[in-house]
């Protein structure tokens, strides 16, 4: 990654409490995902379950760059974003457990975290499916408000493999054409399931793909939360003030399989070893200790706190009630109209 923005050591501008909070976030996401993995193994969680393991710095850096008024659209790999966007870890875990207290009442599960108040406008399971709606959210911002430092903006996440689907192309063209306040963030974890970036994209330097829409691209070290936060803030500012869409590529690394059920046998040992050696959580921990931002004891305390939070989240999820079957038809439509079919299987379609 010759052209990747790497940072090492504490920089003048970094505030210790900020760096500390970054580590708290990374530690919490790591603890949450490891526990989710465990709970899946114990069949407390069903369906697909994609983790942010290895992407904690990216998660923390990106969410730190967002203002409360901004909107976030993510992929199905969304637990960490949900938590760092301010959703309760307990409500996120309860969603994974499919409980009524989950962030979407047990209707969405792992891939579909959503919170209107936190302006986390959803995790999306269809590859590329989030990109057009995110672009439309930016259109709505432009429709309703003027550019400026206080403008709202949209951040839309996508994976490296997702740059090859039509929705990516159509959306970036619209954003460039209309000058929309949106930042597209490619989380390049080097794999789309088992496929490498070189195996899927004719232009593997993904940040360069903005060229087809005159959208500036930037590549950043996704293992450095500060670099991620700085790059995202800069792009969001351009979006707010100049209505210039941006494209960020964050170089990251998927620590485990595509989802919890994927043993990732297709990965070479070197590959996995490199991933491990690149693990951003211990790396950032060590860095803060070297830089004197944290002592070993501080770091341990933070990790313990994260562990406690997650344990409480699991307890909350465990104790929460299931969604009520007799409310099955409540959410199909927002405006109630005549003759909406609300029958359980086997009930007559017509009662004569």
């Amino acid at each position, binding site marked *: 990654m010759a052209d990747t923005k790497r940072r090492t050591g504490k920089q003048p501008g970094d505030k210790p409490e900020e760096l500390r909070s970054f580590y708290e976030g990374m530690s919490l996401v790591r603890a949450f995902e490891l526990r989710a993995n465990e709970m899946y193994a114990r069949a407390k969680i069903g369906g697909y379950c994609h983790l942010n393991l290895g992407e904690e710095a990216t998660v923390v850096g990106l969410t730190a760059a967002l203002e409360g008024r901004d*909107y976030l659209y993510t992929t199905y790999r969304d637990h960490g974003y949900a938590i760092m966007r301010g959703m309760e870890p307990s409500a996120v875990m309860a969603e994974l457990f499919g409980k009524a207290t*989950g*962030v*979407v*009442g047990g*209707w*969405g599960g792992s891939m*579909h975290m*959503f*919170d*209107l108040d936190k302006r986390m*406008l*959803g995790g*999306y399971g*269809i590859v590329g*499916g989030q*990109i*057009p*709606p*995110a*672009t*439309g*959210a*930016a*259109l*709505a*911002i432009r*429709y*309703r408000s003027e550019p400026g430092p206080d403008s709202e903006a949209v951040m839309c996440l996508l994976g490296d493999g997702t740059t090859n689907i*039509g*929705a990516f192309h*159509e*959306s970036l*063209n*619209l954003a460039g*054409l209309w000058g929309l306040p949106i930042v597209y963030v490619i989380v390049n974890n080097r794999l789309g399931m088992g496929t490498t970036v070189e195996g899927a994209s004719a232009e593997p330097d993904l940040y360069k793909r903005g060229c087809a829409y005159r959208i500036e691209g930037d590549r950043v070290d996704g293992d450095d939360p500060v670099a991620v936060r700085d790059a995202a803030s800069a792009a969001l500012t351009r979006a707010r003030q100049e209505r210039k869409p941006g494209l960020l590529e964050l170089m990251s690394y998927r620590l485990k399989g595509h989802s919890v059920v994927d043993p990732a046998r297709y990965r070479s040992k070197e590959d996995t070893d490199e991933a491990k050696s690149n693990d951003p959580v211990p790396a950032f921990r060590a860095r803060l200790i070297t830089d004197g931002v944290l002592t070993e004891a501080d770091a341990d305390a933070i990790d313990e706190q994260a562990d406690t939070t997650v344990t409480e989240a699991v307890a909350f999820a465990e104790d929460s009630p299931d969604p009520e079957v007799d409310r099955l038809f*409540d*959410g*199909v*439509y*927002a*405006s109630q*109209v*005549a*003759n*909406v*079919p609300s029958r359980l299987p086997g009930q*007559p*379609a*017509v*009662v*004569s």
Partner: protein
Amino acid sequence: MSEELRVITYRQALNETLRAELEHDENVFLIGEEIGIFEGSYKITAGLLEDFGPKRVVDTPISEEGFVGAAIGAAMLGLRPVVEIMTLNFSLVAIDQIVNHAAKMHAMFGQQVKVPMVIRFPGGGGQQLAATHSQNLEVWYAHIPGLKVLAPSTPAEAKSMLTAAIRDDDPVIFLENLALYNVKGEVPDGEQVAEIGRAAVIKPGSDLTVVSYSRGMVTALKVAEEFEQKGVSVEVVDLRSLRPLDRETICESVRKTSRAVVFEDDMLSYGIGAEVSATIGEGAFDWLDAPVRRVAASEVPLPYAKPLELAAMPDAVDLTRVVQETLDATRFTN
């Protein structure tokens, strides 16, 4: 012509309604290909760009998936987009956004978000546009929970149902038909808001029920009148709302007439008529004197050549024959 009732085309009814809703609610905006400068490929949006400007009437690139999805996102933030897709055929490149996204969001995201939007497009064959440009796939959309699917057959319905669709908080598929745009009819002045989810008995009758919708209604009413002359009283039911489907109104009619024929422009297998027939079979079984017959298009990619296209599409002659066969099957005499 009275002051309250004007005779205008289906096209004009749509155009006036779009104008009225743009005036009525500043969150309403139109988006689609060629709806501005070009005034719409079928001129439904004529004059609107000029009067409301490019913010309210948004011309897009040829990117159906992109701009339909963008409309979804705008709706999530509280705007009320009215999307035009040039014809139903082109909605296929945007169908993932419509079915996997717009239709699912309200339920899947725990009812936190609404997606108030309308997607308008004409369907139908008969214009010699050949196989890829002549389809009626509304049954696909009618199958999907989370969507509402409306299919007005007259200028008056076009007005009241489009108003209702735009004011509804869910994604609504609004089915028009190329052959209806120039059809004229009486339209009441002032605000008209239809009730979504209701079929209507357009012509009462006692001997046989013809069920149809959209363009099919024109033929259905014509044939019904002809039978009236011959002393056969045909009741005509306009589905109007394909989803939700008003099963009660359909069955009530057949419980009265005990004979039913479904007429549709689409192909027979797995079409709209299949659901209507199954519904009657379930809801009016004991009243039914003869099999429910379906008059529908031949199951071929619609050909360009006029003689072939005419042969493949159902018309008044086909409907007349099947109504007569159904009467004969029950030894009907008057």
